[in-house]
């Protein structure tokens, strides 16, 4: 096959995926009147810095606070959540015990329930402990990632040979130590994948913070932008802030991806789905 066709396909796909992002970038660089009055895909007076300045200064820089919150919620939850999911998936893959399949199926079943249905019960649980409107009310539920357990089980099954575990057992290494020193290393590229998916899922989740939080200083960036967007009727000048904010909110994810991408360079080899 010639090299031209694949490159054309890739080029077309790139165009499709990036043109809306380009549009957002251009839109965020415009003033409000230029936004409706000028060509949508090219710059008018380049006012991105003005818009950014306005965004970061609005209401004492609350937007920056939201970004920071998002990074903390998301980074923390994805890191811890990945470890928890890895441990659970690893145990489900490597040890035989009674009720293993039952546990696994119940965990998978968790994915089936619409998040809208869990909203009220979750709120009631945290109310019980007077913990609504706190950091924990968003952070703790975000740790749970059933999909991560599923992936970890498959990855662990594929990349951690039983013989290795037997060997380290004979060496007198405890199961837990083996996991952290040997198995997790073998699973590492897979864990990066789980981490990335978890990171994006938590970053994008706004239903949970919407239900739990009333204190603006605790909002993650998605909820903040959503809140502004519902106020556009009342304060139309917020529209440009929402657009600029949306653009800025993508940046940390792109950075996370770029940082994690190098773990894939040599292939996911050991840790892929089989």
């Amino acid at each position, binding site marked *: *096959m010639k090299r031209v066709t*694949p490159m054309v*396909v890739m080029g077309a*796909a*790139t165009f499709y*995926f*990036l043109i*809306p*992002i380009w*549009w957002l970038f251009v839109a965020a660089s415009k003033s409000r009147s230029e936004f409706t009055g000028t*060509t*949508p895909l090219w710059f008018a007076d380049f006012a991105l810095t003005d818009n950014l300045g306005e965004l970061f200064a609005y209401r004492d820089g609350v937007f920056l606070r939201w970004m920071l919150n998002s990074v903390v919620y998301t980074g923390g939850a994805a890191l811890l959540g990945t470890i928890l999911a890895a*441990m*659970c998936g690893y*145990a*489900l893959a*490597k*040890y*035989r015990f009674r009720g293993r399949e039952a546990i696994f199926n*119940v*965990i998978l079943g*968790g*994915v*089936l*329930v*619409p*998040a*809208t*249905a*869990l909203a*009220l*019960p*979750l709120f*009631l*649980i945290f109310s019980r402990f007077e913990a609504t409107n706190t950091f924990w009310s968003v952070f*703790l539920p975000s*740790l*749970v990632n*059933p999909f991560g357990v599923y992936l970890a089980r498959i990855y662990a099954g594929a990349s951690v040979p*039983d013989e290795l575990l037997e060997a380290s057992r004979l060496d007198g290494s*405890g*199961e*837990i130590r083996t996991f952290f020193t040997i198995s997790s290393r073998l699973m590492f590229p897979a864990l990066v*994948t789980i981490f990335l*998916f978890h990171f994006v899922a938590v*970053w*994008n989740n706004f239903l949970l913070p919407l239900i739990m939080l009333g204190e603006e200083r605790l909002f993650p960036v998605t909820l903040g932008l*959503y809140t502004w*967007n519902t106020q556009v009727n009342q304060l139309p000048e917020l529209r440009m802030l929402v657009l600029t904010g*949306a653009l800025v909110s*993508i940046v940390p994810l*792109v950075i996370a*991806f*770029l940082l994690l*991408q190098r773990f894939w360079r040599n292939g*996911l*080899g050991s840790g*892929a*789905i*089989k």
Partner: protein
Amino acid sequence: MRAPKKALLFFILPFGLLFTAFYLAPILYAIKQSLYRVERTGTFGPAVEVFGGLTQYQRVFADGPFWESIGRVLLFGVVQVPVMLGLALLLALLLDSGLVKGRRFFRLAFFVPYAVPGVVAAIMWGFLYSPSLSPFDAVTGNVDLLSADLVLWSMANVVTWVYVGYNMLIIYSSLLAIPQEVYEAARIDGAGAIRTAWAIKIPLVMPAIVLTTVFSIIGTLQLLAEPQVFRTFSSAVSSTYTPNLTVYSTSSIPNFHLAAAFSVVLALATCLLSFAFLKVTQRGGDK
């Protein structure tokens, strides 16, 4: 391997406890809710919760718009899921084929839409679809992409745009796991890139494709953010357009009991479909 009890508890308990507290308990509570109804006296009398058996479920099954919306998302899924996964597979194969330069760039480019929150993505595409503000006004000026006939597919495009990169990554990572030796034989046979892809790669990544399909089916049945945003700028999207939107609007009345019954039925339908799909593919694999 046999399980040493202590280690097992250490591995499973942390996740298990959180899962129980934030998934299982809420689910059980929702099921309980769905079996209750309220009673009150007078126009503003306080509500008393009483056991109602299957009253809410009778309402669910008598609710025409709800079943219409299930039909709608099924139609959506039948068309959108194959298109999205086909595209994801094609791009993953191309990335893996060695015929393409700049792999890292493309990987990033395809992944970026997934980084855009669903709500924001829908708002953005709303602008791109709008008749007068769209950069593609040659199209949107002549065809109303937000009309009753087309809006479902306009939404399908948004979902496709966001999730192709995600699914591609799953398939791609599975392609990378295929050991090089497998290809050696093919190379000796003189098989071309297309043949190698068709005869070797696709069968080997089938599990990944099945996985992404199941998750896409679940995602389709639970569509919420896109129709919710599209409601604000398309006259064709009703408050019961998708099953999950029905759950949402019912619970904001607030009619918690009916909303819970809707979600239980929705979860069961999702379970049934994913399970049916898995069965069908497994039978196919047995041959």
